[in-house]
């Protein structure tokens, strides 16, 4: 009875109108031997008990807000203005469906149009879609677009793409016979047989490489250039469109979406005008109503699965509209200037932390010659997992031990700062690191 409105009387009246003696009679089209399987399910819970059970599980996790966290690696703890949460908590937004009936869905449609517009401004490209699942699948969709556009099936990807992004591109590609090669020298590798060149801004280890030549090299051989970009970085750096890229994709999680153990986040994609009709997913367009007023509607649906079926540009249907709304409200509240400010604070803090840590004996930057934004690979004395475990006991999440991604880097940590990593926590990190060679006080 958890969420059911009709009482016994109403159900009886309804059965009468149907002309059935019982609810069971409504299921006679299901073969009897399939009906009422034996299932091992727990007793129903009252709301209060339900809250108790979920709070018990939540209490078995250690939220980042209770720790000094320097973990990033694709998922960032950034400050979320309260109005973002207030907006996505409104039932008018969170309980609505995909806006098929435009006249009763102008709220969702207009916010998507705003999302598309701001993503275009952020990436420096012409057209953005309504959202995709996450940064990794957005990159895979971009690669599939390039394969369809060029009729070629080899992908040249930078070795410093996020490992999860690279893995997802490979899974998407495998079904379609697409080969993925990785290299440190994308512009020197991409050739006339390649569908696309894919690079990251910044790279997985936080560094910024000179990627404009990749876009140029790809154009020269008729391949599509794809940039996997951090949206906050786009507020500070010359954006992918201005660098000459055909497609920018990325994860919008830093734009007002909590880490949430990895999802739901939101994928974004922006492209040059020429690629508009190859895009996957929903697009909202500006139009007018019968009375000439500005109005919005889903458009160019001839690309999509519900119209084109097996000939669609993608299979995506449900996307990530509500997390895209969070990103929309975040961008609108922060403005382009606010996003740049947050990026600057993050850069300053990361460099201050790096300076503090590398002043200690045995600590150094793993890539000292490469400029980085707010993440850096730190070489620690000894094993990085051991170091991280020691700091974790003191409530410090020291970063991602990179041996998990690449065994060669077992002495390295990927360390991240944002505007939520306080100056005091930076000091605690340096202090704890300075003592890490010595026996540590054991605490829970």
């Amino acid at each position: 009875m958890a969420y059911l409105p009709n009482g016994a009387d109403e159900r009886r009246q309804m059965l009468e109108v149907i002309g059935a003696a019982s609810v069971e009679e409504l299921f006679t089209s299901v073969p009897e031997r399939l009906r009422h399987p034996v299932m091992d399910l727990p007793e129903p819970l009252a709301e209060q008990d339900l809250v108790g059970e979920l709070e018990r599980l939540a209490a078995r996790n250690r939220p980042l807000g209770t720790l000094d966290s320097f973990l990033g690696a694709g998922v960032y703890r950034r400050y979320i203005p309260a109005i973002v949460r207030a907006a996505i908590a409104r039932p008018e937004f969170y309980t609505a469906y995909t806006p098929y009936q435009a006249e009763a869905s102008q709220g969702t449609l207009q916010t998507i149009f705003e999302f598309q517009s701001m993503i275009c401004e952020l990436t420096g490209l012409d057209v953005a879609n309504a959202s995709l699942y996450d940064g990794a699948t957005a990159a895979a969709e971009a690669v599939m677009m390039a394969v369809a556009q060029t009729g070629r099936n080899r992908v040249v990807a930078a070795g410093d793409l996020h490992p999860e992004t690279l893995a997802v591109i490979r899974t998407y590609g495998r079904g379609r016979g697409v080969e993925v090669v990785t290299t440190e020298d994308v512009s020197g590798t991409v050739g006339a047989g390649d569908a696309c060149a894919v690079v990251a801004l910044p790279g997985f280890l936080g560094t910024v490489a000179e990627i404009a030549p990749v876009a140029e090299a790809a154009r020269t051989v008729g391949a599509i250039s794809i940039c996997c970009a951090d949206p906050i970085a786009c507020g500070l750096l010359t954006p992918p469109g201005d660098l000459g890229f055909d497609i920018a994709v990325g994860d919008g999680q830093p734009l007002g979406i909590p880490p949430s153990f990895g999802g739901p986040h939101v994928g974004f994609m922006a492209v040059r005008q020429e690629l508009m009709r190859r895009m996957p997913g929903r697009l909202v367009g500006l139009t007018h109503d019968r009375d000439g007023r500005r109005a919005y509607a889903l458009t160019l649906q001839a690309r999509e699965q519900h119209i084109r079926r097996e000939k669609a540009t993608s299979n995506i249907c449900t996307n990530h509209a509500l997390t895209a709304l969070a990103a929309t409200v975040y961008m609108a509240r922060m403005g382009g200037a606010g996003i740049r400010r947050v990026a600057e604070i993050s850069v300053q803090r990361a460099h201050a932390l790096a300076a503090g840590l590398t002043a200690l004996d045995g600590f150094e930057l793993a890539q000292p010659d490469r400029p980085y934004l707010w993440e850096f690979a730190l070489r620690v004395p000894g094993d990085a997992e051991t170091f991280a475990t020691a700091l974790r006991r003191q409530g410090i999440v020291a970063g991602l031990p990179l041996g998990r991604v690449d065994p060669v880097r077992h002495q390295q940590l990927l360390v991240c700062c944002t505007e939520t990593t306080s100056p005091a926590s930076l000091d605690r990190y340096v202090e704890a690191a300075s003592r890490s060679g010595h026996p540590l006080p054991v605490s829970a």
Partner: protein
Amino acid sequence: MNGAIEPRTQGEPGPAPEWAGEEPLVFELGGDLGVAPREVEVGVTTRPLAALLPGVALRAAPPAFPAVPEPVLARHLGRLARRNHNLHQGIYPLGSCTMKYNPVVDEELARLAGFADIHPYQDPGDVQGALELMWELERLLCEITGMARISLQPAAGAHGEWTGLRMIQAYHAARGDTHRSRVLIPDSAHGTNPASATLAGLEVVTIRSNPDGTVDVADVARHLDSRVAAIMMTNPNTLGVFEKDVLEIARIAHAAGALLYYDGANLNALVGLARPGDMGFDVVHLNLHKTFSTPHGGGGPGSGPVGVTEALTAFLPLPTVERDGSRYLLDHDRPLSIGKVRSYYGNFGMLVRAYAYIRAYGSSISEVAENAVLNARYLQSRLRGIFPMAVTSESMHEFVATTKGSRVAGLRALDVAKRLLDYGVYAPTAYFPTTVPEALMFEPTETESKRSLDLLADVCAAIVAEAERDLDHLRSAPHETPVSRVDEVEAARRPVLRWRPVE
């Protein structure tokens, strides 16, 4: 009271209520370009960016959208919110979409810091509660579907379909059965089925439906050969009709070496009452945002877990959640896996909501299906005299009506759909399935009261009566919504997909 602004009525001059006019875009709301909201102090010794980022090209100017002042932004969002139909306002009878009420408590629970503020790369020892929840949810969904294992990773139904098909391909390949490149898909299937097959690199063969709306077994048999990797089915199908021959189809599919795929979009008709696993399905995807009540969010995020029989567990995407004694962990070491299908472990926030929803019902979860079917059959009974039905077979949680052959010649599904909006009722799914002309597909779900169903039936009757009198008024509907009928042709012909500053 003097000075109160009356709602505008048709044709009368006078000030319009604020929500009825055009709503400015965020770019037009004011706020100075280039000015950031107050931020925290940096708090560390700073150096010029040029020194910290040598050789890195910085943007000449910040992105060109303003920081909208909070009071202005709050009203903007408030006004936009009023322009959305939603489940706290009225019925949303979209067929195949299962727009059931989303429990408010689930929203609160997903926002607990212990769920929302945890990082996918935290040490497993710091996220045991999250892993336990995922492990338990997998068990509950296995019980409900009759599958051996379930991956919680796919982000949506279509993503689950593609993931399932990739596993089917891996299964055949691992057996050295490398020529199975086709998928049989009924003509009434959701568009995502053939689109997912194409994305997986499979060729689609369309199977005919019988006049009663079910899959034509003879047509399946005709196409079943050693090239067929899988048959995709929705059960009950998109007409809301239980596939009476499903056991026979499973038998001949398996005899021919093909696997059977279950599109779980319509599981709400059967949840707790019958299981796809018992019907012979090998791979099953679920839509947590349909059957298990996670909100649709205006088009996602959803969640599309995919379940498999024992024979396919080796191919599940990376990673899986495992239990070792009382400890939960992520297993990335699965050599036969199809690989990663997305980043991290799934739309965890949606998993929290679905887990809470299932625990609220627990062993009484069959009440969902019972009431979903009762509501749909009741609504259908009420509508029988108003619209012809697409098929005569008994439907379950949804049904398809048509305006073709109704009392009013020339009555179109589109016009009924648009006029419904004037009554504060969202339109049913129109023009789907494509096998039915002028289709109106109703799915009320179990969370609608009898009163709400009666209102919908009464409104439909009023609309048809109105159409008999004045079809033109219907054709120009809606009249009472924040905007009148939207010109979708203009939107497609001259695509304007972003705001641009006026030069």
